[in-house]
């Protein structure tokens, strides 16, 4: 069975600071990787996804993530955060064998103006 771990439960940053959220998964086969974001009062939205190809993936709103297969990691980054990036961020994984999405517990990011 797949499992996903997110290293940080709550991250507090100031505007313009850089953000990196860790995500590791356990599954030995071919996986698809996702980062979802949930802004306050809104539903889950896809930030970016990795299916194959270039391991550095660019998403919406200036976010990017790097897939490192040898480390089973898919860390999310943003060079300079804004107050509007305050949200909960979820890493998720599925595989060709098991189509369900397995989510991490989420990281709450608070950006102070």
């Amino acid at each position: 069975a797949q499992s996903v771990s997110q290293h940080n439960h709550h991250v507090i940053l100031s505007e313009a600071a850089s953000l990196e959220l860790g995500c590791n998964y356990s599954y030995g086969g071919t996986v698809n990787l996702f980062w979802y974001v949930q802004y306050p009062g809104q539903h889950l939205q896809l930030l970016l996804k990795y299916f194959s190809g270039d391991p550095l993936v660019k998403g919406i709103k200036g976010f990017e993530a790097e897939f490192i297969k040898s480390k089973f990691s898919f860390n999310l980054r943003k060079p300079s955060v804004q107050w509007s990036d305050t949200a909960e961020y979820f890493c998720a994984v599925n595989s060709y064998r098991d189509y369900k999405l397995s989510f991490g517990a989420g990281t709450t990011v608070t950006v102070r103006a």
Partner: protein
Amino acid sequence: DAGVTQSPTHLIKTRGQHVTLRCSPISGHKSVSWYQQVLGQGPQFIFQYYEKEERGRGNFPDRFSARQFPNYSSELNVNALLLGDSALYLCASSLGQGTNEQFFGPGTRLTVL
């Protein structure tokens, strides 16, 4: 263009009752998945339906059941409600199963008293 819609938005039930939650996928999407999100955790997979057939089931008791209709909308049923069933129930739709991106609805907040 309408996204995934779910009804009702909120629901309060008492222990032992049953509940039916509804989901309408994005037009053209043939797959619907259901997730349970308990406060402070990531969504947990319950079911996936594709072309009206169950294609995946998570680690939930038989009190949970679902179905998909010819128009690809779906219902999630939970019988003999327990306090621990209190959660946000999310529906996600995708074009097909497998690698397709899943789009999430706003969820139904179920409170069991």
